[in-house]
């Protein structure tokens, strides 16, 4: 099993010392040399439309910024190759920022037309990027956070959630058709705080008219109290990409309903841990993957990492000692 790594190990959103460096090109030019030094030659990157705004073009996490700084996707790949990265195999597309109905400026009003319009626009850009750089897949955060939907719809939450899921199905079918036409696998990531948390995503994917794949992100399934190995075993034909994310978080107080669920307000904790620091049973998952003959990508991730290099090296040590070939 060959393991790649997600550049989500670089937390571009939350406050931490030296975070500002992450907005400059030089930081990203160097970080890939450190990733390859940690023994990873295949990477996934976030695809985060936030970086398309505000003149922060040094952050290569949307296609426009890659074009601005490197001229073309193949030229960017050459830069990665020079750092020891063989391939950018996929992206994690996060359209959640367009669902901002709970912002004070909007007074609770949410524009689903605006959300899905932006989602599709940037989603096509993400698919183009993956195709042009020779990647294999895009995985999209399937829905806005439950807490955001609740904040936007209040007492009409059920009705709002239904509208969001209906629109999601239509948008996903369109994007998946576009991705399939470009030879890119379209996968859905179901965070523990999304409307398709746990195994709800399985029936959703099966109901779609276009072929859409599952992203089995181990921590997301586990926090939602759903066994990732069981989902893999029951649906091997649907598995498009695997994310090895670790956690020790037990959501026994419905933190998944918060607007900012990755930071549980009831008790501060590091929800996503470095590989080996949580209690996800990766050897078991790896044996199931071998059992079902999975041949796709396995991507290590440590979202909201406190220390990028530490996360990379902890992951490499864990793979070396616990997941031998």
């Amino acid at each position, binding site marked *: 099993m060959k393991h790649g790594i997600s550049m989500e190990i670089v937390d571009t959103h939350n406050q931490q010392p030296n975070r500002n460096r992450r907005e400059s090109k030089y930081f990203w030019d160097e970080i890939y040399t450190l990733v390859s030094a940690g023994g990873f030659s295949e990477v996934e990157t976030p695809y985060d439309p936030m970086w398309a705004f505000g003149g922060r073009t040094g952050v290569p996490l949307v296609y426009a910024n890659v074009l601005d700084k490197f001229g073309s996707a193949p030229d960017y790949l050459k830069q990665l190759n020079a750092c020891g990265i063989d391939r950018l195999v996929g992206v994690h597309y996060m359209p959640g920022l367009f669902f901002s109905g709970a912002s004070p400026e909007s007074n609770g009003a949410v524009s689903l037309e605006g959300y899905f319009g932006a989602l599709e626009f940037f989603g096509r850009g993400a698919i183009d990027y993956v195709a042009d750089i020779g990647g294999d897949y895009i995985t999209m955060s399937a829905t806005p956070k439950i807490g955001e939907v609740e904040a936007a719809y209040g007492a009409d939450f059920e009705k709002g959630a239904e509208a969001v899921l209906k629109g999601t199905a239509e948008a996903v079918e369109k994007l998946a058709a576009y991705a399939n036409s470009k030879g890119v696998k379209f996968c859905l990531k179901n965070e523990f705080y999304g409307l398709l948390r746990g195994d709800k995503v399985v029936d959703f994917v099966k109901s779609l008219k276009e072929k859409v794949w599952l992203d089995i992100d181990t921590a997301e399934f586990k926090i939602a109290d759903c066994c990732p190995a069981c989902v893999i075993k029951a649906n091997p034909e649907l598995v498009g990409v695997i994310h090895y994310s670790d956690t020790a978080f037990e959501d026994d107080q419905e933190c998944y309903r918060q607007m900012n669920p990755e930071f549980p307000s009831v008790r501060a*904790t590091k929800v996503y841990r470095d590989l080996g620091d949580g209690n996800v049973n990766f050897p078991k998952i790896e044996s199931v993957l071998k059992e079902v003959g999975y041949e796709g990508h396995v991507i290590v991730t440590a979202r909201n990492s406190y220390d990028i290099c530490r996360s990379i090296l902890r992951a490499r040590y864990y793979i070396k000692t616990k997941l031998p070939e």
Partner: protein
Amino acid sequence: MANIRLSHMNHWKTIPYKQIDNFRDYYYEDRSNLVYFQDWDRILKYHKALGYDGIELAPWDMHEMMALFGTPENFKAFAADHGLAVSGMFHGVTGAHIAENFDAQVQAGKNAVDLIARFGGETMGTCPNSDYASVGHPLSPEEVRNVGKVLDAIGEYAVDHGVRLGIHNEFFCSINKDNHLYLLEITDPRYTWYYLDTAQISIIGEDLLKFYDDYHERMCGFHLKDTADPKLADSIRYSPNVEIQEDGHRWFWEPGQGVLDFPGLWALMKKHGFKGWVSIEDDGTPDLLASMALDAYYVHNVLKPIYW
């Protein structure tokens, strides 16, 4: 009662917690200093401990802040519990040189004023228009007048709500060296003030002290920051995406770490009797807490003895 109140522009990026009560246990989870920068409770305590009177908010933080506090009033009360006031909030006007954008830009400005008023803030430092590179040409006098009309309309509404709108130059803005004095002249001094960013005005090419001396009656507040790049070439200022440099070059430094004459400015503020908020802006620092402490040392030991 001091003439000057000291604020700090919020450039802490997303602060994910309101208050961490299990601090020791949380620290031990990964033994990282990051836990010291993750809740508003501690961030506000740092402000108070270093002698700041207030905090200036950023509009791009509102969504995450409201997820934690629910309403501006709740944040205002939380800050007050920490001995701090909200001095104001930054605002950005875009595309105001195009007459057809008047209504939308004025409405966006009024929304921002409403928000500031709910926080109890008094200032709205306002970037007057889109950046030069995105506009793509020098603004004509008519286009500058369109910008002025938007600012005056928002400013009048702001005055009615206890807030002062001040033009806040950005060195890459379409309102720049060749037209910002014209904008000041054509806007109504009853409604449109000036929010003096000491570094931005110097990078544009103005003499900081002369500019303040000439326009001191228009000042409603300050963004205090230093620079080592005064009088930056037009070709650089007008290029796209210039604020964040590829090699990490910093345009802005803590007061005293660059080349600007802050004691000279303070002597003029004393001469003209400035009263109001001075907000330090550590834009681009790798370590906000260290910068805040460095700023505070400079203010308390160098500037306060001159005038406060």
